[in-house]
């Protein structure tokens, strides 16, 4: 087992204008499950592939444990990878797929066989060992891909969106299985996904990337409660946080016809006469005062309902989402008044997008 360290690691593709990954500094603890998340093109896959040795590190270093693996060929890094499309060898049986790396490494047949069976038992793949990948269901293929990584008993698992080829229901099930398996095996895991729900539910810590830059890294709760910038605030959470650019007034921020009180020192940090105020849908309450919201759509989820509407705030009309009691949802076309719950707003600088406080 080992930790993984990105030490100011950059990757620039030849001919590209900006780096795919820009001076990434990141430490993954031994046995930790770290999720890299971000929109497509944010550099999450490149970061993972640099760790696997499939992509060249242009600047900086990558360490596994104390060992600098920047120049080490993939096979000598003691890592295993699960690919998005699984990359199972179509001409080999499940057992051969899982045992291939061991065969190349020169292990003897009985050793390979016992390790393959061990992994197969763990993943309920025993009955399928003699089948070819094309005779398996999507979920089974996914497990074979996992099994292929497990049999190698590596120091680090690299997983590149391993669930995105599964249907929605199976994805939720497998999500839990992978998380449990990882905790059981205790192998350091770097997991890439574009799905923030997957990131939040699976990771010990989550690392949000955008345009090759690290936005924030922390426990899921930290990211949710204290997003360190506008991007993370908008990216994490579903439905997404409401973000409005609002003028600063004496004692707080003008939220429609009411003033949302904000501490003076927080406002003092703002480099502008307005700030970005963020409030999650569940932190909006129906109120007597506050901006008027015209309801467009109501999503009833049973216990809760989400109201999607429009409101005039600050510089113009905005979309706004609020969570309301599922038993008494408002009707379409109704006009509501909402106000943020005290102490549950996030304030960001208009220019830099950095968190000011909340």
């Amino acid at each position, binding site marked *: 087992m080992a930790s993984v360290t990105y030490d100011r690691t950059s990757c620039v593709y030849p001919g590209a204008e900006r780096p795919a990954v820009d001076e990434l500094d990141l430490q993954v603890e031994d046995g930790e499950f770290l999720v890299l998340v971000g929109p497509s093109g944010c550099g999450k896959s490149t970061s993972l592939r640099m760790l696997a*040795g*499939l992509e060249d590190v242009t600047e900086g270093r990558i360490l596994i444990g104390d060992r600098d693996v920047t120049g080490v060929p993939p*096979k000598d890094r003691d890592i295993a990878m699960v690919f998005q499309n699984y*990359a199972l*060898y179509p001409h080999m049986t499940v057992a051969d797929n899982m045992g291939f*790396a061991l065969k190349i490494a020169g292990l003897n047949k009985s050793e390979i066989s016992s390790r393959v069976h061990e992994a197969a038992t763990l993943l309920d793949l025993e009955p399928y060992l003699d089948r070819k990948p094309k005779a398996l269901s999507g979920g089974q293929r996914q497990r074979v891909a996992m099994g292929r990584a497990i049999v190698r008993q590596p120091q680090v698992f690299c997983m590149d969106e391993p669930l995105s080829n599964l249907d929605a229901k199976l994805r939720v099930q497998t999500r839990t299985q992978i998380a449990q398996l990882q905790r059981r095996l205790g192998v350091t895991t770097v997991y890439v996904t574009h799905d923030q729900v997957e990131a939040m539910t699976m990771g010990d810590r989550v690392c949000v990337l955008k345009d090759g830059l690290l936005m924030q890294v922390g426990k899921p709760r930290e990211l949710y409660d204290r997003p360190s910038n506008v991007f993370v605030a908008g990216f994490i959470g579903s439905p997404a946080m409401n973000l409005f650019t609002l003028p600063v007034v004496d004692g707080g921020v003008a939220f429609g016809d009411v003033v949302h009180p904000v501490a003076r020192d927080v406002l003092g940090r703002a480099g502008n006469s307005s700030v970005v105020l963020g409030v999650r849908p569940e932190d909006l309450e129906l109120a007597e005062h506050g901006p008027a919201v015209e309801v467009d759509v109501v999503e009833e989820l049973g216990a809760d309902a989400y109201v999607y509407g429009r409101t005039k705030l600050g510089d113009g009309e905005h979309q706004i989402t609020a969570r309301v009691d599922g038993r008494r949802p408002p009707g379409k076309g109704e006009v509501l008044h909402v106000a943020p719950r005290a102490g549950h707003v996030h304030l960001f600088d208009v220019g830099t997008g950095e968190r000011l406080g909340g």
Partner: protein
Amino acid sequence: MTTTQATPAPLAPVPDMLQDGRRRRRPRAGGHRGRPNVLAGVLATIWLALVAVPLYFLVAASFRTRSDYLSDNPLAPPPSPTLENYETVLTGDFPTYLLNTVIVTVVTVAIVVGLTVPAGYAVARNAGRGVQRGFSLMLVGLAIPAQAAIIPVYLMITQLHLYDTLLAVILPTAAFAMPVALLVMTNSLRDIPRELYEAQTLDGAGPFAALRHLVLPLAKPAITTVAVFTSLTAWNGFLFPLVLTQSVGTRVLTLGLWDYQGQFGTNVPALLAAVTLSVVPIFVLYLVGRRYLLSGLTAGAGK
């Protein structure tokens, strides 16, 4: 290329509808379902007659005696079928010609497949300038007519003291079959998903191990196509044997047939028996693997 034709599978098919859908999809006559296309049908029938009659004549005449051939209606079945023409051919040099052709074909295929599998692998996986330039150079070879090369090839072969050997035929035949073979091979190996190559790398397989464990097994269809294409080229080759061989001992089938024209003179049935015999191996191949044969034939036309 490969994903465009995917037919969407209904998630919860109502059995009757699926049946119906299948029934409707099958008879797809370039869109003219059901209704017969008279013009094309008539043309196809005429063409069929133009193809079938000469071939029928060929086989029928090979079973005629020499005198019958001169007196009979050539399109009537042979009144007294005889195998004597086949006997004449098979007791002569025909077996030698056949053996020579087989040797030329097998060795040519071995060279072409043996060289284009690793070459195609390099082109598909190595974006380096040198490799890609080499590939482009070989693609230019697609436009070179072999006829333009016979004089210098003749010079080279005589200088190498290979004149009138089977190797003299094999070397240029293989070289000129190589561009098409490489193109087919490369296209096929590029269709292997990148992740499979990467998985090999992570599994610790170097380029040679990947060639053995991944490329070779997955290139089987392409290898078949290349082998069939090259076999046909070598089997039917005429120009290089004509220019580079001389004696009976190195004569291949196509040249042998031509030689029969002079040798048998007016014994046309014997000549036609030899022609028929020369088609038999390819015909068997056609019966065994029609799909492979046709894919090999059109290999030159690219994907």
